[in-house]
């Protein structure tokens, strides 16, 4: 059984076998490494991608078919090994090292619970046993408060699933020599395991028992945490929804008061007319309500995030919301001063 992944090549969609994707990724990285200083790198890669997409379309029968290692090898037969892209041999010799990116992932190959400790140890370049020791100490001295942080990391830090993600987790560059090294390592590990089967079996049994117990406990904790978050989210969304409804109703009704002159002679309720800012009352009220509404909108968005994991809103949304809010803050400061220095008075 193999995992398939979605791959976009020059705007065209393909289903790739995991191994095929890594193979093509390594191929692209190696080609890029020969031209990393060149201004035409992007243009070249676009052309190459488009050509490979074209070749793949010729090879596979229908768009549902999964692209496998064999297909990639066929493509590479036509395109040639990555080093056939080299233009100047002497210049490209030492370029095989690509820039390494380091990202925080959880390590699926070395996990006691969620693989958080090993992920963190890769990220900071520490030995995993020290991180686990620190975890233990933190857990003891924070009276369990640390476990919330641990669970949060477990939830929000992704698991390194693909080979390239594992490279990123360890901060290694994704290139041919590294990939070869990795495959070799895995093979040797496998060979070792066969040699020490009995020892491994015994060890795995012990570890898996404890791990299974902790995993079960941890899964329950995680699901409780998710449930609490969801409940909190529902409360937030309902409360914010009602508040916003009230605020909008107030905006309209107070505006209508004045437009239709209904309020003349009769006292306002709420008695907002004691604040005279020198402009129509509905505008004063409007500013006040915007001040209140924007934070409530955020409560609503965060609550919705807890329930559905939907995004809290794009940059544009935040810019508009915060912009409007700051404008209202500035206006209310301005009128606050005018009110205070007596330019405008109580009725």
């Amino acid at each position, binding site marked *: 059984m193999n995992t398939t992944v979605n791959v976009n090549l020059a705007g065209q969609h393909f289903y790739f076998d995991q191994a095929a994707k890594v193979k093509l990724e390594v191929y692209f990285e190696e080609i890029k490494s020969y*031209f990393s200083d060149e201004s*035409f790198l992007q243009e*070249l890669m676009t*052309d190459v991608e488009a*050509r490979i997409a074209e070749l793949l379309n010729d090879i596979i029968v229908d768009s549902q078919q999964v692209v496998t290692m064999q297909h990639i090898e066929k493509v590479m*037969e036509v395109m*040639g090994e990555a080093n056939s*892209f080299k*233009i100047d041999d002497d210049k490209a010799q030492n370029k095989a090292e690509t820039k390494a990116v380091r990202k925080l992932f959880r390590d699926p190959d070395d996990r006691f619970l969620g693989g958080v400790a090993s992920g963190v140890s890769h990220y900071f370049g520490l030995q995993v046993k020290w991180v686990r020791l620190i975890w233990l100490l933190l857990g003891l001295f924070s009276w369990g408060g640390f476990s919330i942080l641990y669970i949060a990391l477990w939830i929000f830090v992704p698991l390194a699933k693909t080979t390239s993600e594992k490279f990123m987790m360890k901060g290694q560059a994704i290139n041919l020599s590294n990939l070869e090294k990795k495959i070799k390592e895995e093979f040797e590990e496998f060979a070792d395991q066969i040699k020490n089967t009995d020892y491994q079996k015994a060890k795995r049994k012990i570890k898996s028992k404890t791990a299974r117990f902790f995993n079960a406990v941890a899964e329950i904790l995680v699901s409780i945490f998710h449930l609490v978050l969801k409940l909190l989210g529902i409360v937030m969304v309902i409360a914010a929804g009602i508040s916003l409804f009230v605020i909008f109703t107030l905006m309209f009704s107070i505006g209508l008061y004045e437009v239709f002159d209904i309020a003349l002679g009769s006292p306002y309720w709420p008695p907002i007319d004691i604040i005279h800012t020198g402009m129509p009352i509905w505008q004063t009220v409007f500013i006040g309500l915007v001040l209140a509404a924007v934070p409530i909108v955020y409560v609503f968005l965060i609550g919705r995030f807890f329930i559905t994991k939907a995004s809290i809103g794009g940059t544009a949304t935040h810019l508009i919301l915060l912009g409007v809010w700051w404008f209202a803050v500035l206006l209310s400061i301005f009128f606050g001063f005018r009110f205070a220095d007596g330019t405008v008075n109580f009725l």
Partner: protein
Amino acid sequence: MQLENTKAQLRKGVLELCILSILAKERKYASEILSHLKDAKLIVVEGTLYPLLTRLRSANFLTYEWEESKTGPPRKYYSLTEEGKHFLSELAGSWNELQIAVEQITNPKK
């Protein structure tokens, strides 16, 4: 020193001249240029062509325009610029000189 390597070096040296000559007659897209080069057994794999095309393009010797094709995605048609034509005539000149020089040395006539 390997024979294959040296052969590849020899071919690569004249590839730019050949690409420019192919495009001197009429504009072509990558696969057409490829089939010319493959027929002449100048290149074996496609990978060699693409960096040369983009490099010549970024040196302003080539320019391209997109054109719809009946089958598949739009194609990038390459053609020579004025600078490219000049560069080609320079290259062709030194190729002739080189050819004569190599001929003299490899087949010395008594």
